[in-house]
């Protein structure tokens, strides 16, 4: 069974089809890099996979189940464009809150562990609104990994990250892949993404232009997929 299966998904914004008959799969332990120009539909597809919006046609399955089922959501971690943590709460309060919402047995202990893993243990009681951008991003990473998800959905995870946050995220993603987690990430940072990816999907104007195994050519030349399969190829 695929960890993530997208079966003939169409998504419209008004009359405009943002996704057109998308069909792709990610096996358990795979890392799928979703690439494409701005407006290609990467974020729309990731949000549909995450269950934030529903597709008008087609089906999305996570380990064979609907994305909105509670059991499925418990297995998913998501990092979107925003950091999704509360400015008015402390780092510890934020992670404890999400630990409680995910039903962790000891939310505070898990929160403290992840604050240490992301290098935020010294500021655990500081309000997020007082954090630097890099610290906020590391906290966002901790939030997404806190409940040990089996599937990670990452929307432009490396964009606007500082060096330390990139290093933390790359380390955690490598550890996750080694532990058999499935990763689906949209990105414009091709070099970082293709180093991690096992598979690549190229979206062009809402359509799947390419879906296959990542090859060494793609790592050597990050523009290869666009040149070979993109518009004007």
């Amino acid at each position, binding site marked *: 069974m695929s960890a993530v299966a997208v079966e003939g998904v169409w998504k419209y914004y008004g009359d405009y089809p943002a996704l057109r008959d998308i069909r792709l799969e990610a096996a358990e332990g795979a890392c799928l890099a979703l690439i494409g120009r701005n407006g290609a539909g990467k974020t729309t597809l990731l949000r549909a996979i995450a269950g934030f919006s529903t597709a008008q046609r087609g089906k999305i399955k996570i380990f064979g189940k609907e994305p909105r089922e509670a*059991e499925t959501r418990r297995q998913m971690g998501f990092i979107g464009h925003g950091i999704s943590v509360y400015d008015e709460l402390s780092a510890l309060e934020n992670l404890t809150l999400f630990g409680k*919402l995910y039903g962790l047995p000891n939310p505070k202990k898990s929160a403290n562990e992840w604050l240490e893993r992301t290098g935020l243990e010294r500021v655990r009681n500081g309000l997020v609104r007082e954090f630097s951008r890099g610290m906020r991003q590391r906290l966002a990473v901790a939030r997404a990994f806190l409940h040990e998800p089996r599937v990670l959905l990452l929307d432009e995870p490396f964009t606007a990250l500082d060096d330390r946050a990139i290093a933390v995220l790359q380390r955690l993603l490598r550890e996750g892949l080694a532990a058999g987690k499935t990763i689906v990430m949209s990105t414009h940072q091709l070099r970082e993404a293709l180093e991690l990816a096992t598979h690549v999907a190229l979206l062009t104007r809402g359509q799947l232009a390419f879906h296959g195994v990542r090859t060494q050519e793609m790592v050597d030349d990050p523009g290869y997929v666009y040149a070979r399969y993109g518009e004007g190829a």
Partner: protein
Amino acid sequence: MKYVRQVATVTMKDLRAELRTKEAINASLAFALMILLLFSYTFDPEQEMMRQVSGGLLWIVFAFAGTLTLNRSFARELPNDCLDALIAAPIPGSALFLGKCFASFVLVLAVELVSLPVFGIFYRVHWTPQFPALFGVLLLGTWALTIIGTIFSALTVNIKLREVMLPMLTYPILMPALMSAMRLTTSLVNGQPIPEDDFAWLKMLVGFDVVFTAVSLVLVETVLVG
């Protein structure tokens, strides 16, 4: 029990965030006190008419001030895209919604309970003898305001003009509840028990709360995810 814990977690998060910033409660309280003060210059507290309109006046203030708090209910989730994280969490949409409702309910009720003595002083009404019944009507009316305000706050959260849209959508639907609350409150703030004829209004208010709570709980998942 798990469901109750999820609701309580969301409620406590919203209350904690609001008590740190005080942005909604300060605006709401300042607005309520200002309107009460301004109206007190308009109406003569000695007139019979004042007694007749006191309930309506009070609920107009509560409804307007309450909207300021309710506007923030889901708008609070917009900075940093926090709503995504809440929707992604494995809790039912109804638990998220109820958690937010209870937090807003506490905040709106707090503003009302502060406004009530001020109203008593400015308008020379004797609201204390019937306080238990009045408190009951406040609870029912405030729940109606909260449940409608919160579901429409969720519906309008991604609209740019949500501050304008929320009152436009909520007040027409709230009419039966506001009419009932006004009618019941008028006798109570004048120190009189609810007249027997007005028990139909009480039933309507209870019915409104039950029906719209049930409808909102059914619809909230669709409202949040679409």
